[in-house]
């Protein structure tokens, strides 16, 4: 193993592994399989990487492709539970205009707490889209869901997160007041 690859591997392994863990439904076996294939491919096609600065996004692309192949070949459901639109906790009407983000959502500590209030699949959806820059169309492809259905689910999930953040801020204000 070349020294260059070794340094890339040690530098990016944990981050790529977390990404794969997120995409792979938190399944340790699935994560290991996809991770192994990802690094094997990275090793195999290392010479094709011309811009060494783009190694991080290159690794993410390989991991995404490997995950897509895994889900397609194994016929594994992308979401562990059906993301239903009639969630009792979700607001009845999604305000299309409300794209504001309460300040609590910019605080990492509060954000971690707020994310914990969502279901596992909802967290995955938000993490994949915002933290890992995976487009909704790509998530729709991976999951086999209709793009519009996924978009509605995403919107509803975000609204749920906003509502939780506002409630948290209100509670804090009341306590301080």
């Amino acid at each position, binding site marked *: 193993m070349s020294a260059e690859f070794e340094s890339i591997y040690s530098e990016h392994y944990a981050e790529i592994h977390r990404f794969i*863990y997120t995409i792979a439904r938190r399944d340790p076996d699935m994560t290991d399989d996809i991770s192994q294939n990802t690094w094997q491919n990275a090793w195999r096609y290392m010479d094709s990487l011309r811009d060494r600065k783009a190694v991080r996004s290159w690794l993410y692309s390989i991991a995404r492709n490997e995950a897509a192949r895994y889900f397609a070949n194994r016929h594994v459901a992308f979401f562990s539970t059906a993301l239903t639109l009639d969630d009792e906790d979700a607001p009845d009407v999604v305000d299309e205009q409300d*794209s504001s*983000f*309460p300040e609590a959502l910019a605080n990492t500590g509060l*954000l*971690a707490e707020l994310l914990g209030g969502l279901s596992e699949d909802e967290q995955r959806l938000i993490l994949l889209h915002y933290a890992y820059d995976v487009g909704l169309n790509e998530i729709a492809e991976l999951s086999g869901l209709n793009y519009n259905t996924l978009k509605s689910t995403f919107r509803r999930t975000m609204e749920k997160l906003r509502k939780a953040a506002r409630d948290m801020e209100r509670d804090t204000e009341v306590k301080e007041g």
Partner: protein
Amino acid sequence: MSNVDEQRFKEALQTLVRDEPERLAFFDGLDSDAKLPPFVPNNTVGATPATGRPPLPTSARTKRVRYTFGIAAAAACLVMVLSINALDSGSNLDMLNTSVSEMSGSGGAAPEEAYNEVTPASAPEAAYDDVAPAPTAARTIPQPESEIEELDTADMDEANALTDDIDTPEEANAPTPATDDAGMDEAATPEAAATDPPTHPPVVPLVIIAAVAALLLILFIKRKKQK
């Protein structure tokens, strides 16, 4: 309550995931302190890498394949042994039927009766041991006369009664070498020896194979449940 833009939310989330993943309950299943697993190129599971480091942990897929093959192999062994066993029992039964029909055809008694009558003079096991090696050796099996000489005088009457029984092959149809050569030949032939008691089903290997198969099955089910 003030708002922030989407970009700040995104940055906060990325920082959280990249720098403080331990704060997210979502990543609880990942061991953040876990040592970096060694990377082995060429996907050679189980091979010793040139670096001298241990190979990558066997992937779940490989484990699954091994489990499946293991169970399939165990099941195949079990089926094979059972089939052989069943065939063996069948052939024994056929042989027994043939012997019975042959004996009945010569006007003799049922095999069980013949054995019962022969037993007092010489134990079946000893007789078989002596007879089994070869027809010529079989002819040297204990002579009824020499055995009678060894009996106590107190048992003479009984011994005489026994010799009477043995000496009348028409009644016993027993393979007494001195009086019935046909019966002797029949008992001494390899075909007859094949019907001997040692051809019992191989119980011990069967039990071992069944136990191994059961163990593999339990492991498989256990692993499924863990998943």
